């Protein structure tokens, strides 16, 4: 369950830029890893418990996004995706070669001094909290002026720009917000694993899974990522336990292929069915989103 909540939080925060604006980031795991390293370093050097300092992980990731984001958000389509992927690879490479950050061996974090069950439930509640926060923020963005700007960018960026929207600023704001939430989740995750290495917290599989879930559920609305994260986490866990990890990854890959044919995801399909029914029964026409 903790993992499901984590993926809900991650794919919700990805959706702010990737879903509403259609800027598909392949490298969100960079922000996740930065959050994890920030809280780990704070614990080891300052002695602050990550369960208190995880918002600082988010701040660090947001700052990083603000610094590197400006040139990146001006790229379009797959070039944006590839560059975000490269940013994730480069950050992980830099961490691997920095002895102060533990290099490839990573950092050991002493676990909280409490019984294992209490420990588990603590992380459970924190991840649930993060899932709620991320979902809330994303739902808020959807109905805010920022969300309106992002959706205008998705539909036609040139027109949005011509209508007076500062598209670069909007995209950058979305990226920073999204990175901050991702970094907060990362800050908790590093402590949950009690072992922070580049292999674990910059794992590209996490980076791909989080946006697959958003796309699968439908990333035009905040309900989608929740649906996608729950269904795909359960499916992935089931396949991994019963058949094997490779089959689970193959299923994820197939879902990614499938998603291209249903750009609005599960939520879009559900919408279509319900709208058709309403029309058939003489109900109101749904508003085009």
């Amino acid at each position, binding site marked *: 369950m903790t993992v499901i909540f984590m993926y809900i939080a991650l794919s919700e925060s990805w959706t702010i830029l990737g879903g509403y604006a259609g800027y598909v980031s392949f490298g969100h795991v960079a922000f996740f890893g930065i959050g994890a390293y920030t809280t780990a370093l704070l614990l080891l050097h300052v002695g602050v418990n990550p369960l208190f300092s995880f918002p600082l992980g988010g701040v660090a990731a947001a700052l990083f996004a603000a610094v590197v984001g400006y040139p990146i958000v001006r790229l379009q389509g797959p070039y944006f995706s590839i560059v975000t992927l490269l940013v994730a690879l480069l950050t992980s490479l830099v961490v691997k070669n920095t002895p102060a950050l533990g290099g490839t061996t990573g950092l050991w974090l002493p676990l909280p001094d409490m019984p294992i069950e209490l420990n588990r439930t603590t992380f459970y509640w924190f991840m649930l909290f993060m899932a709620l926060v991320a979902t809330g923020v994303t739902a808020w963005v959807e109905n805010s002026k920022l969300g309106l700007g992002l959706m205008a960018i998705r539909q036609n960026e040139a027109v949005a720009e011509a209508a007076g929207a500062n598209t670069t600023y909007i995209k950058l704001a979305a990226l920073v917000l999204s990175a901050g939430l991702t970094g907060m989740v990362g800050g908790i995750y590093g402590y949950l694993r009690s072992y922070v290495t580049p292999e674990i917290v910059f794992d590209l599989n996490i980076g791909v899974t989080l946006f697959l879930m958003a796309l699968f559920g439908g990333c035009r609305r905040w309900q989608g990522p929740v649906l996608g994260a729950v269904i795909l986490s359960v499916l992935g866990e089931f396949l991994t336990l019963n058949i094997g990890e490779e089959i689970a990854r193959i299923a994820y890959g197939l879902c990614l292929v499938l998603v*291209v044919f249903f750009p609005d995801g599960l939520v879009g399909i559900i919408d279509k069915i319900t709208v058709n029914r309403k029309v058939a029964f003489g109900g109101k026409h749904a508003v085009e989103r």
Partner: protein
Amino acid sequence: MGMLVTSLASGLLLGCAYAGAAVGLSLAMGMARVFNLAHTALGLTCGYLAYFLLTTAGIDPMVAVGLLAPLMFLAGLALWPTLFRPTVRGVADPALSTSILTLGLAIVLENALSKVWTPNPRIMSTPYSNQAITLFGFTVQGSLVVAAVLGLLLVLGLHWFLNRTFIGLAIQAVAQEPDGARLVGIRAELVSMLVFALSVGTAAIGGVGLAMIYSFGPASYFDWLLTVLLIVVVGGAGAILGTLISALGVGLVLGLGGALLPQAWNSLILFGLLLTILLLRPYGLFK
């Protein structure tokens, strides 16, 4: 000094081999608007098939390429109408939708390969693979020469095909002006399908070439993909000779970097170069 010259020579040969792996992607990106992140994964699959043929039936990889490339061409013909045409047609940004589609394909292929052949790295060993060959006074590895010749022949052959045959000219016409090409009676849909199939077919040649040089595992396609993307972006999508030139440059960087710097630096340079070029000139250096 001798070592430097040798690494320069093998860098150039490496560049030729990479040109073979990159030229198909350049073709697909420039002429069919397909951003194929599964390009090297398809190539790697062929590398594994060639390895399988070599170890079980003793078929030389050079012969295997002759079998696999037409097979992959047919696979490309089959993939286009089923998966790719719906993702290219009527979509606001075909490059983005195909990149998501092919990322999925690459993940499927990677894990299928790891399921069938385990994640352990493999090495293709042929009679000539470790033989030292002396070319113009430089001593280089045999398999590198074979892979470089394969890549060079492929690039030059494609260049000839695109500029000297009727179908090649039709392909260029569709890439430059799809509507105009339709007006003069070219079936643009068929041409896109042909370009895509050609690209997948060449992925086989490039992939087997790279598999002859390097030891490879199921995840190798990822490093290859980044190198190949760097080459295509530097050379400009759709430019065949541009791809060759940039591949030679990247080969030199890799060859020299491999000789002079530790391994970690090599990938740092590679990623850093790709990042810089994508940020500054995403449409290629020569366009």
